[in-house]
């Protein structure tokens, strides 16, 4: 598993939120296991997608990687340096190299700031501390070039966020993320809130930017189609864990985990004939609460192929055993006993 | 929600209908009097509050009391002899009963006086009788007091409510009489709802025949002067004690009510801290005295309800010289200016007048005085403080000038000695004058009325000249009476004793 060229390597990541009780003295009475042992790596220039339904921990994973959420356990190696072990000053400096694009184009921009100031702010913060060698004029020039790269007209610089449509706001957010010249972009559902016609614009923009600036993406989404389009590899999450990870095409054509298969079959296809002919796997019930401690496979209650073993033993993410249900490509790993020897 | 609305409306309607006619008059004669302050406690030997005294007036008796002309007349003592100026012998009435039924005897007098003298009791009355060396019981109805030095104001002191005679056993049972009552007075305490009302009932065994004339007296506490007046008008109250000039002026024009008004013993003064600049200079004090216009102050601050006075309250006619016969009787701006200039304040002077917004604090007087002092080039600042702060400043002598309301007395020694003697207990002017001290001491030892009159006449002149304070006026004591009331008389020291003879139709 030596990750030659891995920009980001996450291992054993856990994010638990305490459930507290008490008024005068607050006691912890349990945990919400939002992320419960996640490992993955992202190579330079690669896009890794994290998919899953709401509450599966994909966003929390992203936030923990960006150190915006406290880690309960695990390592986040960024260029070999463990972000989890940095002190606040080091962390602040390191932030230059990984930036975020957020889901909600409405709440991710401060409504009281002009577009120009929003994009310039990261540079100003770093420049003020002497960690970025740009003066006011240089910052202004860079803001202009960033706006251009992101397809924003120069005349927008003096406007406020509320004067824009969702797509344009998302472009502003992207320009802000690029301001410091990051190596990694963590994009948390960047197109979920957008209409289809705008969504494709933004996806194309991100692709262009990736090429232009040699960016690495950790791309979070709930829409499998979007992730498959955008990412090289995809990790599917369920209840705080990765249940399957594979290259996009492999996951699309050869999904192994029952959950992945159900997910894929639930995605409506814009093709009436295919829709009519396809066989649907409809999952029973809802996602269970992540605050309940559970032994065994987290998916077993909803799984149509659950075995007795699933109830008391948790499967580990590993390449499928040869001679399983079919050929699996390199790097394809799944966390299911169907594909594991004993 | 809907149910609530209906219930509420129903209640409101019922109230409207039942309203004014809801209370029926009983057969008994009840007199309702409105006062602006609640009594603090009822132990006559301990309380200092004016409001408590007004209840004690009716509940207890003293050895002697004032009548409505400030003459000392018998109360529990039928008569007294003064064989020499160090001995007083009192002959008690027979058959006087405490409200618990026990007869009052000379033991009770001895017990009471000793209680007052005991420093543990911390009685405010102690200073009136500190000269008493011993109290001898001659017989069941005769008591003899032996003094260490002569004190002409002793009888006057004994007329104070603080020296009302109390029964030993009740005190021992209750540690004090603050919440309970057992006197010999015309009325007995029936019910006391603090800050609301106090009901007194007739004492059937009262020693004076025919008194009291009503079955019940109800005190109601109404802090607003205007409400008190309105209460008498509407018939809610039979009478009310009101000290606010504006309200009285309004009531005086009102045919529905009767206003009784006469100058009381209280005295409004403009006092100086003679230990501090600029008032350590006699000329400055005199300048202020020349500038103040008593008539204008009375007109504006009291709506004319009062009388200008000298160092002794004008109502104490036996002693007091009319202010017109005293120095600085006439406002003289030119003289004031000259005096100031002599004192080195030709270009003007500035000082603070401390006052409080309550009636006793004299805010209205201070405002008029401030205005008048401008005429002699004095720029006086008002320091209007809350009453507690006022008292604090008073007792710490932390002021330059102050507007005060002093409780005067019908007897010159009792008031003047403690107020202006250099050792006087309430001499907060820090006033030290050998001549004044000499005259005050002399007044104490003289026994003949005529001699004393001469002494106090010159003292009045001297005090007015030396001006530890400017003596302004005595505010009237006012009572507003409704049509049902007759037979009430004002004493002049605020006492409601004559309620014992008051009738209602």
């Amino acid at each position, binding site marked *: 598993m030596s990750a030659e060229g891995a920009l980001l390597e996450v291992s054993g990541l856990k994010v638990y939120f305490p459930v507290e009780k008490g008024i005068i003295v607050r006691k912890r009475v349990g945990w919400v296991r939002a992320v419960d042992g996640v490992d993955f790596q992202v190579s330079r220039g690669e896009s890794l997608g994290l998919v899953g339904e709401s509450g599966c921990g994909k966003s929390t994973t992203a936030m923990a990687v960006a150190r915006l959420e406290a880690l309960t356990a695990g390592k986040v190696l960024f260029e070999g340096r463990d972000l989890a072990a940095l002190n606040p000053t080091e962390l602040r400096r390191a932030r230059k190299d990984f930036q975020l694009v957020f889901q909600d184009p409405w709440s991710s921009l401060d409504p009281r700031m002009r577009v120009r100031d929003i994009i310039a702010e990261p540079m100003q913060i770093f420049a003020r501390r002497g960690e970025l060698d740009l003066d006011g004029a240089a910052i202004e020039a860079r803001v202009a070039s960033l706006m251009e790269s992101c397809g924003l007209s120069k005349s927008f610089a003096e406007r406020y966020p509320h004067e824009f449509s969702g797509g344009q706001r998302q472009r502003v957010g992207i320009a802000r993320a690029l301001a410091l010249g990051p190596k990694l972009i963590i994009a948390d559902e960047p197109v979920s809130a957008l209409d289809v016609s705008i969504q494709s614009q933004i996806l194309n923009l991100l692709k262009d930017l990736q090429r232009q600036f040699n960016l690495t993406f950790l791309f979070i989404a709930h829409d499998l189609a979007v992730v498959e389009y955008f990412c090289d590899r995809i990790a599917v999450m369920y209840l705080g864990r990765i249940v399957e990870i594979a290259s996009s095409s492999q996951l699309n054509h050869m999904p192994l985990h029952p959950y992945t298969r159900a997910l894929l079959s639930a995605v409506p296809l814009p093709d009436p004939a295919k829709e009519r002919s396809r066989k649907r796997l409809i999952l029973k019930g809802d996602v269970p609460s992540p605050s309940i401690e559970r032994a065994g496979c987290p998916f077993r209650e909803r799984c149509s192929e659950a075995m007795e073993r699933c109830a008391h033993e948790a499967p580990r993410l590993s390449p499928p055993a040869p001679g399983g249900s079919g050929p699996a490509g390199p790097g394809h790993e799944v966390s299911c006993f169907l594909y594991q020897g004993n | 929600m809907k149910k609530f609305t209906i219930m509420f409306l129903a209640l409101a309607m019922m109230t409207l209908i039942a*309203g004014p006619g809801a209370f029926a008059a009983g057969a008994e004669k009840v007199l309702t009097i409105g006062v602006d302050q609640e009594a603090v406690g009822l132990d006559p030997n301990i309380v200092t509050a004016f409001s408590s005294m007004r209840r004690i007036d009716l509940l207890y008796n003293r050895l002697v009391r004032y009548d409505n002309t400030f003459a000392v007349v018998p109360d529990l003592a039928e008569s007294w002899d003064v064989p020499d100026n160090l001995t007083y012998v009192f002959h008690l009435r027979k058959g006087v009963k405490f409200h618990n039924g026990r007869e009052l005897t000379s033991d009770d007098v001895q017990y009471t006086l000793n209680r007052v003298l005991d420093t543990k009791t911390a009685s405010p009355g102690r200073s009136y009788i500190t000269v008493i060396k011993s109290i001898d019981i001659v017989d069941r109805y005769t008591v003899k007091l032996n003094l260490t030095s002569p004190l002409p104001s002793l009888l006057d002191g004994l007329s104070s409510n603080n020296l009302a005679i109390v029964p030993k056993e009740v005190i021992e049972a209750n540690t004090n009489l603050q919440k309970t009552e057992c006197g010999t007075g015309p009325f007995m305490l029936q019910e006391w709802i603090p800050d609301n009302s106090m009901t007194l009932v007739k004492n059937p065994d009262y020693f004076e025949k025919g008194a009291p004339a009503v079955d019940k007296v109800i005190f109601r506490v109404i802090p607003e002067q205007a409400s008190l007046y309105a209460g008498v008008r509407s018939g809610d109250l039979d009478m009310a004690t009101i000290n606010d000039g504006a309200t009285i002026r309004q009531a005086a024009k009102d045919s529905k009510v009767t206003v009784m008004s006469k100058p009381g013993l209280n005295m409004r003064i403009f006092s100086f801290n003679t230990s501090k600049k600029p008032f350590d200079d006699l000329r400055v004090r005199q300048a202020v005295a020349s500038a103040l216009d008593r008539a204008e102050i009375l007109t504006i601050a009291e709506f004319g309800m009062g009388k200008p006075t000298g160092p002794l309250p004008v109502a104490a006619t036996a002693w007091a010289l009319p202010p017109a016969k005293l120095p600085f009787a006439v406002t003289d701006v030119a003289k004031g200016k000259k005096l100031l200039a002599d004192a080195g304040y030709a270009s003007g002077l500035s000082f603070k007048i401390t006052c409080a917004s309550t009636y006793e604090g004299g805010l209205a007087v201070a405002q008029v005085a401030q205005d008048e002092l401008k005429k002699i080039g004095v720029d006086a600042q008002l320091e209007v403080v809350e009453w507690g702060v006022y008292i604090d400043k008073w007792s710490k002598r932390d002021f330059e000038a102050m507007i005060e309301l002093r409780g005067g007395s019908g007897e010159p020694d009792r008031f003047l000695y403690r107020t202006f003697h250099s050792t006087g207990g309430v001499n907060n002017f820090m006033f030290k004058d050998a001549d004044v001290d000499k005259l005050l001491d002399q007044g104490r030892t003289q026994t003949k009325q005529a001699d004393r009159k001469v002494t106090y006449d010159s003292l009045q002149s001297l005090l007015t000249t030396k001006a530890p304070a400017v003596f302004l006026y005595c505010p009237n004591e006012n009572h507003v009476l409704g049509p049902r009331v007759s037979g009430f008389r004002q004493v002049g020291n605020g006492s409601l004793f004559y309620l014992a003879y008051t009738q209602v139709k």
Partner: protein
Amino acid sequence: MESNVGRYIAKRLLSLIPVLFGVSLIVFFLVRLIPGSALQMYLGTQVEATAEQMVELKRIFGEDRPVLVLYVEWLGRLLQGDFGISLRTGREVLPDILSRLPLSLELTVMALLIALLFGIPQGILASLKRNPFVDVLNRVVGLLGLSLPQFWLAALMVLFFSGFRGWIPMGNYVGFFQDPLRNIQMLLLPSLAIGIGLAAVIMRYTRNSMLEVLEMDYIRTARAKGLRKRSVIFGHALKNAILPVITVAGFNTGYLLGGAIVIEEVFALPGMGRLALYAIYQRDYPVIQGIVLVIAAIFVLVNLATDLIYAMADPRIRLDDSGRKS
């Protein structure tokens, strides 16, 4: 569920302790910072006292020991339910306060009722009549109610109603249980004077809340079901719109209680506010301390009650230990 509520109440009550402790600490030292003392007030400007007497008096008035010692003593007795003895009247503090509490509470409750009975219907009406003129008129009238100084209103009431016997208490206040009708008649004007401002507040909150709720999706759902307008407004909208009104009403109940001070003075009502006022004037420390503690306790209890009522009205609030509600 029930035990949950019980536990919640118990915990909330426990959490009052630090607040009340803080209040006790502040009030105890605050009142002693005020210039003047009970002893000075007792002596006034007329009384002479000798040195020996002063020693005795200082002992009686508790001026002979350090303040810190006094605090610890007071707190110790307080924990046993002993609020001490009034320096002014020598009476026990707690019974004196408790005897005036019913009046103040009744006044508060009546004012609250008046506020709710005027405020809520008016607020609903205002939210439905979207005619701009009526709307503006409604709001101006409401704001006018908010702008009337209580004491001014009270003084004017005394001025106008003093001719009518029985409407203004004249020191002849009767308790509710002695004569409910007389009692309510007497308290009507005072509580009106207190409640009118809150009525305006409630009206505004009801209106705003209704306007907000009427835009909600579930109102559209209710209309889409074919419900009558009345059912939509009372069955669906009001049930939700009332929630913030509960908070505001509860929030202001404590304010009403404290605000009754001036009104009690003007109307000569023997309530707690008046006791407090005199106690402050007379530097009657134990009484001030007692009253502030009692009012603070009531205040926090009212807040607790508000939260409970809110929780009953809003099933989304769970009375568990989720801590403070913001």
